[in-house]
């Protein structure tokens, strides 16, 4: 909201010496954020009246002249192309450095080789109207060297632009009188009591005993809290006086005519929107009631609106006149031929106005204010102020009777809140005296009684929503005293050990392991995905149950059921830039749940890509190490009968062979797999992708720790024994490791594969290494020999022939 400092000065004296930036800063620090400070017509202060003394042709250009002129105490010369230059003419001159409207700054510049010391200006260039292209011609009697502002007798105003969001909770600051009250507290200087009882009586003295021409009927079920109306006659609609135009235009409102402008003027001044009708267009009396579903109403902007039963409409006997609190209609507005008017000042339920304006997408100055919960007591003052200004701009006008009212009982009793000096100081961390606190409350128009225990009477205009309890009162004191006066200190609290939660601990383990051991880069993918991506990934579940109603785009209109589609999309981006890469995410998948509506699963996803190599084994190796790192016992199972919750069996993206279930504590918690080339083709990915998807939700609640067991190291040498067996091509090499179970030999310390060698089309040669040993003694050669024989016979028994 733009605040005019001139306007504010109607109500308060701001110290003359105060720099405007300091003033804005004080407002920011005490009340609400000032976004910008602007001077109105600042350039007119610098532009001077000069008289042309000499004109020469520019030697290089036919249409340009070198114009010399007298500024009063000096002369200067510019290059000028205006047609109306002549000696003796007085014109406005902008020197180098002047910033003209539109932000154009005059720089020293040569025009066709000759330096121009600034510019003689036209009205258009000065932002004073759309005059001809020639120079602005000033009166012959104008004083040389005088600023154009003085010459034009223009008021200079300064505007501060306050962020509307920071006024959301302050209905009283949507009018300049309220803003002035803040400055009064800031500068400890009194607010003028412009609207006191004398003023009220003086306006009321214009009332008479004529019958009010319009009756008002407020239906209590409507959104109306109270409705004041007054009729005036003998109105002459014309252009508003210049002072009113200046003020309105300075704050960005368009001046229309003297009557319409009054409603805007009072709204800006007191914060209460109002509506002025051409009374002759009102047929019969005025009723305020709820609309019916499907009612049509054409607003001032000539748009036909469809109403619902919660909207309130102000109507006469025939038609709707105003959509309550939001916008007037096109039929009853004031125009040039209006003779009689009806001024409405009403107050509306904030929520209802908000509902209507949100539904219709129609935010007006009026609805914005009503939404903030205005004070019903403000209506009558605003009505009187409007009447006062009508008489000012239209002295022949007459009131018909006196204002009429319908609505809730008007109650100006001030709500009382109890607080204490102790409480306020406790919240703020200050040690303010009772007098200090009381003084601040008084400057903000709160009435205070008591000394340590305070009884605060809250002004009605602050009590609509803003000030509800003593915490709100503490804020009033804090902001006026200045938060920068609060001493900064550490609280004195017991010291207790703090640990990471299991969730956080897992998160960190994921990040540490994946980045350092798996050499993978962490990514963040959007939890929101779209149908297109899911279909492109051939993902069987479109997660329609977790769809948003107000998505910004179809690409992000539902929660992702899995990280896999997002991973494929990211891989496609990166496959263009890298021959291989690895990335991971610690993210959530979102699944519908009939009981709880939704379920969030904490998933760690790892993706390995190579243009040429198969990364499945790398992926499995990382998987196993990672599970060890977490301290989880696991099984890697191929083709388990249970469904895998991370990848549906019917997902077309699964590689026919490279796919294993990861089983932890009897539950399938993950899958490691390669992506089917068909799905890769759909993403235009050339190369191979393997992934791990592991659901760690269950371990986010309870701590998992890796436990280490110690056993003594044998002092006696162990003995190795290698043998090579034939494993049919197509079978897993590790199948022959099952021999270790058959052996039931306590001295078998380990059994590992040394190498796998493709022997022929039928068999692979798998070399196994057995390590035998005993903690208590060296194994005798004969014992070892017998173990070797045992190994060979058991291998034969389970179907593995020795390679001869």
């Amino acid at each position, binding site marked *: 909201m733009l605040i005019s400092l001139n306007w504010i000065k109607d109500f308060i004296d701001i110290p003359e010496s105060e720099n405007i930036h300091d003033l804005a800063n004080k407002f920011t620090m005490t009340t609400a954020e000032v976004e910008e400070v602007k001077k109105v017509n600042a350039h007119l202060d610098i532009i001077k009246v000069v008289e042309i003394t000499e004109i020469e042709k520019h030697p290089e250009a036919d249409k340009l002249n070198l114009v010399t002129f007298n500024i009063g105490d000096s002369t200067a010369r510019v290059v000028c192309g205006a047609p109306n230059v002549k000696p003796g003419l007085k014109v406005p001159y902008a020197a180098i450095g002047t910033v003209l409207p539109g932000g154009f700054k005059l720089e020293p510049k040569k025009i066709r080789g000759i330096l121009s010391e600034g510019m003689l200006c036209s009205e258009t260039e000065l932002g004073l109207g759309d005059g001809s292209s020639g120079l602005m011609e000033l009166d012959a009697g104008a004083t040389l060297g005088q600023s154009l502002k003085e010459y034009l007798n223009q008021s200079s105003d300064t505007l501060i632009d306050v962020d509307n969001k920071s006024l959301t909770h*302050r209905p009283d600051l949507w009018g300049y009188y309220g803003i002035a009250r803040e400055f009064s507290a800031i500068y400890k200087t009194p607010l003028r009591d412009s609207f006191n009882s004398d003023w009220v009586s003086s306006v009321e003295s214009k009332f008479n005993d004529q019958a009010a021409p319009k009756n008002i009927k407020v239906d209590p079920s409507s959104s109306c809290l109270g409705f004041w109306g007054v009729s005036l006659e003998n109105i002459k609609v014309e252009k508003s006086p210049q002072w009113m135009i200046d003020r309105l235009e300075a704050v960005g409102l368009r001046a229309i005519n003297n009557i319409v402008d009054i409603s805007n003027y009072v709204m800006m001044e007191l914060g209460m929107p109002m509506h002025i009708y051409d009374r002759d267009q009102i047929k019969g009396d005025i009723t305020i009631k709820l609309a019916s579903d499907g009612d049509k109403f054409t607003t001032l902007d000539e748009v036909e609106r469809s109403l619902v039963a919660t909207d309130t409409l102000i109507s006469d006997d025939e038609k709707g006149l105003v959509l309550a609190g939001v916008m007037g209609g096109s039929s009853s507005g004031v125009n040039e031929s209006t003779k009689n008017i009806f001024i409405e000042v009403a107050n509306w339920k904030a929520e209802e106005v908000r509902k209507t304006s949100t539904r219709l997408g129609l935010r007006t100055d009026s609805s914005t204010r009503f939404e903030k919960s205005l004070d019903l007591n403000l209506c009558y003052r605003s009505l009187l102020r409007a009447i006062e200004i009508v008489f000012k701009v239209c002295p022949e006008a007459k009131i018909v009777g006196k204002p009429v009212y319908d609505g809730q009982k008007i109650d100006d009793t001030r709500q009382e809140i109890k607080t204490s000096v102790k409480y306020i100081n406790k919240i703020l961390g200050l040690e303010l005296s009772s007098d200090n606190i009381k003084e601040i409350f008084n400057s903000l128009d709160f009435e205070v009684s008591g000394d340590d225990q305070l009884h605060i009477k809250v002004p009605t205009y602050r009590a609509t929503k803003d000030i509800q309890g003593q915490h709100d009162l503490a804020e009033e004191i804090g902001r006026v005293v200045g938060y920068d006066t609060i001493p900064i200190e550490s609280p004195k609290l017991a010291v207790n050990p703090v640990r990471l939660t299991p969730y956080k601990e897992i998160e960190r383990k994921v990040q540490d392991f994946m980045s350092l051991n798996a050499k993978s880069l962490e990514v963040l993918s959007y939890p929101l995905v779209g149908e297109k991506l899911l279909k492109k990934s051939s993902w069987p579940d479109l997660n329609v149950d977790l769809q948003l109603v107000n998505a910004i785009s179809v690409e992000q209109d539902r929660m992702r059921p899995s990280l896999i589609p997002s991973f494929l999309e990211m891989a496609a981006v990166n496959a263009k830039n890298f021959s291989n890469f*690895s990335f991971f995410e610690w993210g959530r998948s979102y699944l519908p749940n009939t009981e709880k509506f939704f379920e*969030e699963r904490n998933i760690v996803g790892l993706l390995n890509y190579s243009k040429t190599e198969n990364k499945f084994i790398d992926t499995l190796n990382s998987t196993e190490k990672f599970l060890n790192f977490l301290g989880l016992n696991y099984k890697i199972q191929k083709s388990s009968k249970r469904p895998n919750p991370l990848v549906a069996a019917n997902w077309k993206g699964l590689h026919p062979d490279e796919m294993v279930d990861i089983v932890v504590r009897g539950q399938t918690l993950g899958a490691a797999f390669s992506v089917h080339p068909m799905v890769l083709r759909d993403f235009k990915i050339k190369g191979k992708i393997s992934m791990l998807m592991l659901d760690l939700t269950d371990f986010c609640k309870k701590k998992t720790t890796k436990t280490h067991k110690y056993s003594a190291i044998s002092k006696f040498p162990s003995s190795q024994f290698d043998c090579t067996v034939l494993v049919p091509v197509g079978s897993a090499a590790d199948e022959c490791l099952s021999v270790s179970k058959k052996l039931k030999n306590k001295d078998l310390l380990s059994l590992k594969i040394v190498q796998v060698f493709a022997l022929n089309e039928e068999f692979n040669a798998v070399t196994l290494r057995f390590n035998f040993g005993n903690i208590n003694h060296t194994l005798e050669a004969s014992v070892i020999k017998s173990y070797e024989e045992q190994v060979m016979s058991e291998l034969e028994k389970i179907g593995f022939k020795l390679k001869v």
Partner: protein
Amino acid sequence: MINKIGSLWESFQEEVGLLEKQADVLNLKAKYIGKKGLISEVMKGLKDASIEEKKLIGPKSNEVKKNIETSIQEKLKDIQIKEMNEKLEKEKIDFSVRDSNLDLGLNSGGIHPVHQIQRSIEDIFLSMGFEVLDGPHIETEHYNFEALNIPETHPARDMQDTFWFKDKAHLLRTHTSTIQIRGMEERKPPFAFVGPGKVFRCERIDATHESCFHQLEGMMVGENINTGHLIYFMKTLLKEIFQKDMEVRLRPGYFPFVEPGFELDIRWKKPDPKDEDARHSGWLELLPCGMVHPNVLKAGGVDPDKYTGFAFGLGLDRLVMVNYKMDDIRYLHKGDLRFNTQFSHF
């Protein structure tokens, strides 16, 4: 005789210096200190020496023998080293060819910059006794609005464009303040925690706006917690993040869940003292915060008459952008590894 032994030592030294082969060295050893070697030869004349001479010759000959033996051993080792070095020379590798200058594709690992900053802030608070919590992304109106003193009719609901689900009862959390309520419900004062996490807003995405971003919420509740304590923790946090004392200012800010509510700005640029118009500029709005509203305490099961507390929120993505002078927020979620690898650990 002594002189003879002495000159043998000298001639040995000359000879050994010329040798390069192991066999020659062993021959030389035999020549001098073998059973029929030159030393033994000289010692045969011992019987003719005087008693005084004998006393001197014995030790002298032993000394020379020992020296020759040591010298031989050294020489043999030298020869072996030389042989080994010749072999090593043949096995030479070019160690200029390392991963760092090989095209291995992308071969780096690292944590996302948002999570790096998140973790460092978590650690700062952890060190000051704050727990680290999180909550669900899909929330109810209760946790996201009502409990935070934002009733349905409150204009503050306009300030946050919320993603809603079809059941009209669930939504995507618009702020991490939901964690405040969940945290309070599970604790008894005094307590302190932070809650980092993803939040969602129904906003058009552009270089400075995201529909999904990260916040870190913080809360401390106790019997005498005041605004001065809030500023203390905020200043400490900023000092830890930026590794220097930061000038801050607290000004009124409106958030329904705090009262009094503040905007905390940090001095980001020193204004030019000559520029009068800009003397109040150079502040960066960083942290909305305030004293927890009594209604919020109540919603979390905390008695507002007994306890007070402060709360704050911090935009992590914003902090990353400020820290690295990033110009486009969209890189954070794009997954383009050319971005992520800039923040890798190795």
